[in-house]
């Protein structure tokens, strides 16, 4: 794979509404080339929606978004996207290699003949070579996630967008996936945006946090954003941020992604485009409560 470097992302007074529902408003954010940003917040706060804006799939209601100074275009080869994981059916007629290859040429017409060197290199990069010819539906969640990341990397993106890449993975797989993302960024300088419920597993590999809640937002280093004061101001109710060893726990945000507090963002449940309705992700409590 080539090392195309990282893309620069800029949001200026970005506002998104669905009808009367405000998702977020007046969002100003700069992500420098090669920077790693975690997007946090309760369910329905517009995290996935932000990724879809960057992918050019959803237009802003107001404000501007640019990637390397240009508005995002749908299907841009500059952007790799790891969508929120859905388990592949065991009968699905596709192997790991085919899945990764679709990341290279899946949008092009024709028959799926080819297996490119790009795909092989991406599979190699994520350490999936040993199971690349197994039907994906027969692989474990962690293996499937590696292949999905390989698919996103196969096009040589300058910006990598990951939606809950660690969801439903055991701690060992979580660690291996974060190590993989970080290693790739070190080698290629790729800008990475990770949407996550939980900061702890990604805390090691991120530079900055964007926290969205109740239509408001805060951005900065984890230490400045993940505080009782900042999050209480965002939610408009008292939130406790507790640090135990290297874990950051957010308490009072409604005890999990499905129960936003105080009704302060009622009606915001539309924003994740239906992803979060497909299956309960097992209530990964925001921040972890142990």
């Amino acid at each position, binding site marked *: 794979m080539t090392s195309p470097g990282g893309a620069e992302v800029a949001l200026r007074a970005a506002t998104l509404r669905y009808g009367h529902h405000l998702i977020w408003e007046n969002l100003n954010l700069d992500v420098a080339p090669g920077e790693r940003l975690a997007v946090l917040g309760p369910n329905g706060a517009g995290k996935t929606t932000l990724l*879809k804006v960057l*992918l050019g*799939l959803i237009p802003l209601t107001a404000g501007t978004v640019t990637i390397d100074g240009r508005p995002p275009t*749908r*299907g*841009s080869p500059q*952007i790799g*996207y*790891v*969508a*929120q994981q859905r388990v*592949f059916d*065991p*009968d*699905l*007629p*596709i*192997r790991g290699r*085919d*899945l990764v290859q*679709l*990341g290279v*040429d*899946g*949008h*092009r*017409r*024709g*028959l*799926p*003949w080819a297996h490119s060197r790009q795909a092989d290199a991406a599979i190699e990069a994520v*350490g999936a070579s*040993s*199971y690349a010819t*197994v*039907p*994906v*539906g*027969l*692989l*474990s969640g*962690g*293996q499937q996630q590696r292949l*999905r990341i390989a*698919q*996103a990397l196969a096009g040589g993106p300058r910006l990598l967008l990951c939606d809950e890449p660690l969801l439903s993975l*055991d701690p*060992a*797989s979580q*660690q*291996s996936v974060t190590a993989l993302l970080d290693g790739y960024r070190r080698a290629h300088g790729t800008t990475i945006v990770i949407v996550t419920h939980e900061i702890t597993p990604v805390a090691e590999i991120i530079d900055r946090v964007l926290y969205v809640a109740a239509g408001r937002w805060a951005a900065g280093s984890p230490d400045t954003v993940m505080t009782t004061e900042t999050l209480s101001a965002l939610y408009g109710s008292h939130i406790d941020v507790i640090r135990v060893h290297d874990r950051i726990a957010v308490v009072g945000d409604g005890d999990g992604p499905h129960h936003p507090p105080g009704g302060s963002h009622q009606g915001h449940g539309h924003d994740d485009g239906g*992803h979060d309705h497909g299956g309960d992700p097992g209530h990964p409590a925001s921040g972890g409560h142990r």
Partner: protein
Amino acid sequence: MGFGFILAQPFAQHALLAAALVAVAGGLISPFVVTREMAFAVHGTAELAFTGAAAGLLIADNPVVGALVGSLVVAALIATLGARPRERDSAIGAILAFGMGIGILLLGFYQGFATAATNILFGNIFGVSGSQLLILLALGLIVAVVMGIWYRPLLFASIDPETAEARGVPVGRLGLLFLLVLALTVTGAAQVVGTLLVLSLAITPGAAAQRLTASPLVVAGLSIIFAIVAADGGLLVSFEITTVKASVFITSISFAIYILARATGPALRGRRRHDEAP
């Protein structure tokens, strides 16, 4: 009447050719029908092809064109009424039941009701005329060309629609295109096995192929081969045993292939979850 004698007859050759054309179309679309979970959509389209065929028979004495119009109409209805799978299935159920009722009403006006109904529901490939054969040829060609051009993006959209959308695949439009192709295939298959048994050529071959391999191309190839073996094999058997309708043999062969694939699949394709390699 010997087997060779029958094979030399134009009607038999027409039938074998028509069945093979339909089988190629069915074999091409059936893996997608399985992956996109559209079995009920196929069935619904076929039932409405029955209504169309009945109308065609009554109005113009041409069940093939009637079936074509019927299945295209229902494909359009499915597209507009049901975007989400659950919504889609209930919409199809509602349309299907009503459409079948209309079909029976229409056939009631037709003289020779019983024969016509049996032919439409269970197929009558030997009744295919030269001009109808041309229509089937055209249908098969259109399906093959469309699938040849859009196979890869359709595969992407069927397997992982979210990522495909983000990569610039027109997921929604491909879904419509697939419905159209499905309607054409159903129309063709209805002539060979009848509207009630379309699933044996439009789902079973793909379902069987997926049991044996996970390579998308090999699945497509096997699916086409299975469909041809079932369709033409069934016809050949019916030349020998003339008292039984060909569709009986076609569906039986198709089912036998499926059972065989299910039995041998796990050994060929693997079933165990691989251990996590962190």
